[in-house]
């Protein structure tokens, strides 16, 4: 902890620890008095106001006085390397002020100064196809390169790919999560979570220990879009949580970019559907976004490698489509071992990728 907390801040934390309250209710309680600590410590004095906000709130606040222990909370936060960020703090994003129900406190891990950087959200389906994967990587890379901070939700699929790509580019990234800052959901993203905490920022409005409940995700989506200049949807099916982020972004007047997909692919149905919305912009190349924001993209570092004849042969066979090993054998006419060796060399150069099932692609 950089500093000791004021009475008021403890009151805010106490309210945050009551899981049953909505953000709006918390904000209303805090607005009852200039000294919210009085409301929290002696709620019985404000019973009328509290009852008008919601029934049972008075009892909940009374209970929280028992259950919330300041000392223990501070020790726990220190142990997990997290800290609270209040509205009065300089790092608290100004962008949240336009929200009707801006969280009174955020729980953070990592570098909170990133919140004031120029952010761009990349969201999409949790089960991306190869196409969605490639699109996400391509855009995340380009946007990181022009020093956008990539914001996403650390979910499975597109979110995780966006974060990971940003980190691979050595760029910071912000993950807005839908559970306590001490929980990793989904669990398979543990390594990514730790890396973001170290090199980027993880924020949440949920109190430590709160589980990832289904209704949290739509709530956190509004923070994702609020933080960002624009939102890019790389691949989304119908009925996707991504739609909620897009709706929030539209409400907040953010720019929305959509990457069109294959019209037959279920995973792209959502993005393609949204293309009909005149408020959305179409991005078929990262440059579209960079142009929109008048950013100068870095020179593509192509043809930097000196390729041998065989390597060029293999590379050009892969330019239109992914190929199976056997196809490559036939197309290139190289011998078995020769082709294997060429593929490894190209792969090591980072020019091509090996895909599951003996496929290779660029």
């Amino acid at each position, binding site marked *: 902890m950089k500093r000791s907390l004021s009475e008021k801040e403890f009151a805010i934390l106490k309210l945050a620890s009551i899981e049953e309250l909505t953000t709006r209710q918390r904000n209303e309680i805090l607005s009852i008095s200039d000294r919210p600590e009085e409301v929290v410590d002696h709620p019985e004095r404000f019973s009328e106001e509290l009852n008008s906000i919601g029934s049972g709130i008075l009892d909940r606040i009374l209970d929280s006085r028992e259950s919330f222990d300041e000392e223990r909370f501070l020790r726990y936060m220190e142990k997990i390397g997290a800290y609270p960020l209040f509205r009065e703090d300089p790092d608290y994003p100004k962008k949240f002020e336009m929200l009707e129900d801006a969280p009174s406190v955020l729980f953070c891990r990592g570098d909170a100064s990133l919140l004031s950087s120029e952010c761009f959200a990349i969201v999409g389906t949790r089960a991306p196809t190869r196409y969605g994967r490639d699109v996400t990587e391509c855009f995340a890379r380009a946007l990181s390169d022009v020093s956008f901070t990539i914001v996403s939700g650390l979910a*499975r699929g597109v979110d995780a790919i966006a974060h990971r790509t940003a980190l691979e580019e050595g760029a910071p990234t912000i993950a807005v999560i839908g559970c306590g800052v001490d929980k990793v959901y*989904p*669990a*398979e993203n543990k390594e990514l979570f730790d890396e973001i905490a170290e090199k980027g920022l993880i924020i949440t409005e949920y109190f430590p220990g709160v589980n990832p409940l289904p209704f949290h995700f739509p709530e956190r989506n509004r923070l994702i879009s609020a933080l960002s200049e624009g939102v890019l949807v790389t691949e989304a099916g119908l009925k996707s949580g991504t739609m909620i982020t897009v709706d929030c972004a539209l409400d907040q007047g953010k720019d929305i970019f959509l990457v069109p997909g294959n019209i037959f692919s279920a995973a792209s149905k959502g993005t393609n559907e949204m293309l009909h919305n005149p408020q959305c912009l179409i991005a078929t190349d990262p440059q579209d976004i960079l142009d929109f924001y008048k950013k100068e993209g870095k020179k593509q570092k192509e043809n930097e490698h000196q390729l041998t004849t065989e390597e060029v042969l293999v590379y050009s066979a892969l330019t239109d489509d992914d190929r*199976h*090993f*056997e196809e490559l*054998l036939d197309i290139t006419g190289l011998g*078995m*071992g*020769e082709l*294997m*060796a*060429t*593929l*490894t*060399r190209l*792969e*090591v150069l*980072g020019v091509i990728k*090996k*895909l*599951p*099932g*003996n*496929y290779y692609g660029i």
Partner: protein
Amino acid sequence: MLAKVNSFSLSGLDGYKVDIEIDINAGLPKVEIIGLPDAAIKESAERVTSSVKNSGYHFPIKRVIVNLAPADTKKEGSLFDLPIAIGVLAASEQLFSKTYKDYVILGELSLDGKLRPINGLMAILISGMQQGYNKFIIPAENAAEASFIQGIEVYCVHSLREAVEFLEGEAKIEPVAYRDFSDAMRDDRYDLDFSDVKGQRTAKRAMEIAVAGGHNILLIGPPGAGKSMLAKCVVSIMPDLTFQEAIDVTKVYSVAGLLDEKKGIVTKRPFRTPHHTATIPALVGGGMRAKPGEVSLANHGVLFLDEVPEYKRQALETLRQPLEDGEITVTRVLQTVKYPANFMLIGSMNPCPCGNYGSKKHVCTCTPQAIRHYLNKLSGPLLDRIDIQVEVDAVEFGELRSKAEEESSAAVKERVMRAREVQRKRFARSPIYTNSDMNNRLIKHYCQIPAEAESMMETAFRKLSLSARASFRILKVARTIADLEGKENIETAHVAEAIQYRSLDRKYFS
């Protein structure tokens, strides 16, 4: 009167001599067998009584004591029936000639006096020969098995009567004629040929390398990709069994009672496919009598584990010692025996529980955790012993029907043999035969790679996130690839190819 007959028994694959002493005393009629016999030997009394009577002899109505010496070793099996019967006839003075003392007598009797074949004969004959016994009387049905051993006289009899007549000199029997091993080898074909597998060139190439260098291999692919068929073909590209190897294999098969009696010797490399429900004793050997398990039956051949992750973890872990030492020690209450277990391990698995991970046509329905959990069933130490991991994918319909000539097993085998020859010369002064057996010191000595390859490996480790322990494996496989090409030195291309055979280390698999 006392009679003493020579016979043999087995402990594991080693035969030891058993003296069968028969004494007939006055007393209540009874046959008493002592010297730690098992149930089959105890019942021998009834078989011997009936068969002596049914062969036209008279079973003494006295107290018959049969002692199996050495008395402190537990004996098992039914092969003492014939020696006991001969002993009884000698002790009751119905067999006058003393020639039976020159022979080692083995055989199980049926009630009518006919002889039945016994298990483990090959192992007994070899041990007997090593211990200086060279005349044997055995059941006629075991004749084929005996015919491959040179330097001993083996007489085959069909019944107790025939055995007695032979010993009395009344019937003349020719010893079993020695047969050359190559005769038995001649018309032996494997059911599946490499040319029957259409397409799958990556997997076939990996198989060829695996066999050439004696590497264990893991095939990863969706259901129906042809992993099992590929595995079954592998024996057809392995070098032919040498006579010594054939004897080794035959011994185990004979002891396990799996030998084809007409043939008498195993001429094909064994291909064993235990089911994934196999218990540990079934895999490594055991049971009350410490019988050989699948790993020993696969000696000099292939142990194929289909759907490896489905096997019980513990069962898989028990494979580590045989994979390392080439033999297995089975310890049971009654005995501790060593069986050979020098096999090539071929494993097959799906890329994920539903099998469609990475497929272009089907959608994988597994969660990342489910995939990780599935792959984690293979422990690191076991994976450490598998040098080559290769993806096999479903063959396109067109390929199945294509008329393109596929290379035959014979052609591949020839290359394999050449590579093996190179290795034999290389390791002439080491106790190993193939590249896969090289330890770290030998790898450093024989697997020097050019600087260019060195730097490529370094980048590959970083970029392809290969695990550190993959490096020695890659070098060994690169050595084999160079040997297949007849190259003295490992070249960069060889290392590059070897890196392709580390599928499981890839990012998309973790």
